[in-house]
């Protein structure tokens, strides 16, 4: 596996850097000026939220397993803990890549620290990302350095404390991230504290799907999946069938509540019956709900790994679409709402007819680069770090 994995890593690295580099070089052209003025946040922002949600959700699941002493089948999950912690940590990187490259003037980034503005949710995101990354890093180093890996039954107090710190940081981060959108009274589709619950449920769903897929692929390549097939397939089935109803419950009540508020209803009207409806019904509902439910039941009943993989991939695709719909369509909907048309002036709607969002070439390249960066970094960890239960530290002094 090692040589082929190394070649794959190099290929992914080169492709990712090429896409990101070319995307940066192209930049946003002048013709995007009117679009960015009317709709300031493009596709990189949903991409950023997607990866951040995966990292947060995976951290939450890991921590809950640790705190509540979930042992699983023959402590299988404990054997995967280093993989899953690394997965949570590394999923933050594409999120940061996307949001950093979305900045128009990143050269002034030092002002995020020097000019820290404590009422800005975006400013707090930086603090909370740092906190989550540090706690995850501490957890990973602790787990790798741990010598008593066989004493699985007795979770040490230190491990428990770290897991609680990760859990608190992850929930705080996701809540704050949701309110970076939810505190904006200017976008009716986002405004409100409901986004906290919505984001958390979505994060847990995405984190579960991403983490499960990663660990299953690693085990598949290592040849240890077959012996635990039944356990992994039923785990996926149980997780998805538990979280999906919670996520859709929030979605349902959000739609019901929006019905009583016209500006918010404009967004849902567009989502449910407007030009965007095929994406909502086709991807969010069919791929994001019906397919995972059926696949999860099959995974649970038939102990089918294939069905569980289908459910996981479907959830990731629908999860990205859900972020895209909320963040992009949410902005479009505000432009077309009666109150906002009154206020935006003749400019953008009249001159440019901003009815649909089309990402710039640079945005597409950067997003693709981040999506390739993700498996590249996961592979790098497998190659360089002792993430397996039986692996000993090999390369980095810090882990010895």
């Amino acid at each position, binding site marked *: 596996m090692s040589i082929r994995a190394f070649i794959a890593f190099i290929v992914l690295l080169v492709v990712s850097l090429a896409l990101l580099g070319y995307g940066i070089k192209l930049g946003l052209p002048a013709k995007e*000026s009117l679009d960015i*003025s009317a709709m300031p946040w493009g596709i990189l922002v949903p991409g950023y939220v997607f990866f951040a949600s995966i990292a947060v959700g995976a951290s939450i699941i890991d921590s809950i397993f640790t705190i509540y002493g979930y042992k699983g089948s023959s402590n299988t999950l404990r054997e995967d803990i280093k993989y899953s912690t690394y997965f949570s940590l590394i999923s933050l990187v594409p999120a940061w890549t996307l949001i950093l490259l979305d900045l128009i003037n990143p050269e*002034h980034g030092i002002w995020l620290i020097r000019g820290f503005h404590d009422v800005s949710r975006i*400013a707090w995101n930086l603090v909370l990302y740092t906190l989550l990354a540090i706690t995850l890093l501490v957890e990973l180093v602790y787990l790798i350095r741990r010598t008593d890996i066989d004493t699985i039954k007795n979770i040490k107090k230190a491990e428990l404390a770290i897991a609680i710190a990760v859990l608190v940081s992850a929930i705080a981060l996701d809540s704050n991230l949701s309110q970076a959108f939810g505190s*904006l009274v200017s976008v009716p589709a986002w405004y409100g504290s409901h986004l906290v619950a919505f984001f958390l449920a979505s994060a847990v769903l995405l984190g579960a799907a991403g983490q499960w897929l990663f660990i299953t692929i690693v085990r598949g390549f290592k040849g240890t999946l077959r012996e635990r097939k039944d356990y992994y397939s039923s785990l996926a089935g149980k997780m998805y069938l538990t979280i999906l109803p919670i996520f859709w419950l929030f979605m349902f009540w959000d739609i019901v509540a929006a019905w009583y508020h016209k500006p918010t209803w404009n967004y849902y009207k567009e989502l449910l019956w407007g030009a965007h409806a095929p994406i909502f019904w086709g991807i969010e509902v069919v791929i994001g709900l019906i397919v995972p439910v059926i696949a999860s039941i099959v995974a649970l009943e038939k102990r089918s790994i294939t069905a569980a993989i289908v459910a996981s991939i479907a959830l990731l695709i629908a999860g990205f679409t859900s972020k895209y719909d909320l963040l992009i369509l949410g902005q479009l909907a505000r*432009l077309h709402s009666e109150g906002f*048309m009154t206020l935006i002036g*003749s400019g953008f*709607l009249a001159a440019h007819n901003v009815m649909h969002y089309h990402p710039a070439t640079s945005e597409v390249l950067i997003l693709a680069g981040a999506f390739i960066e993700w498996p590249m970094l996961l592979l790098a960890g497998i190659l360089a770090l002792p993430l397996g239960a039986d692996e000993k530290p090999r390369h980095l002094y810090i882990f010895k």
Partner: protein
Amino acid sequence: MARMAMVIDLNKCVGCYACTIACIRENIARQKKNGVEMPDHIFQYARTRPIDFPLEGSVRVLGFPSNTPFFIQCQQCENPPCVAACPTGASFKTKDGVVLVDRNKCIGCRACMIACPYGVRTMYLGRLSSPPPNPYGLVPRYPDKCTFCYHRKNSPEGWVPACVEACAFGARIFGDLDDPNSEVSRIIRNGNAVRLREDLGTKPKFFYILPNK
């Protein structure tokens, strides 16, 4: 302390666009040796913009006839959502109550643009080779908005924004809300002026006198 404010009297405004042109000349267009340099779609970057599409929404919201000229610009809110959203403090409110952007601190996250419920912040991504016409003039790749011509604050002729100066019909009135003798204060005291989206709690310092029906 002062609280600078502006009023547009829609009874006097004839929609001649003199204010928009004056704003472009003062803050957007750059003088070059052989002419003038401007962004494409120049009217979209004017800091006071006419609304020239059908006004059904305006009529319903503000309740005036649909042929009334109507201009939109930064509302210079007392509780500006753009300032609250800015993570670096680049968007800030001066002691005069004017919301400005410190370009040295701006990372270009566009949170201010999306936070503005009036949709009045713009960003031009093209290139302009000449320097801006004044220290607060439009600079590509930074959020741009009305500053009440802040560069004129210490002008010997007094602080009069270009749009106010250009209005031949006296439809635009500029002054200090904290000065009880200013014309702006008098108009507000008389209760003739309205603000946009009062329900949001942003407390704009930009007022409209609605046309007599």
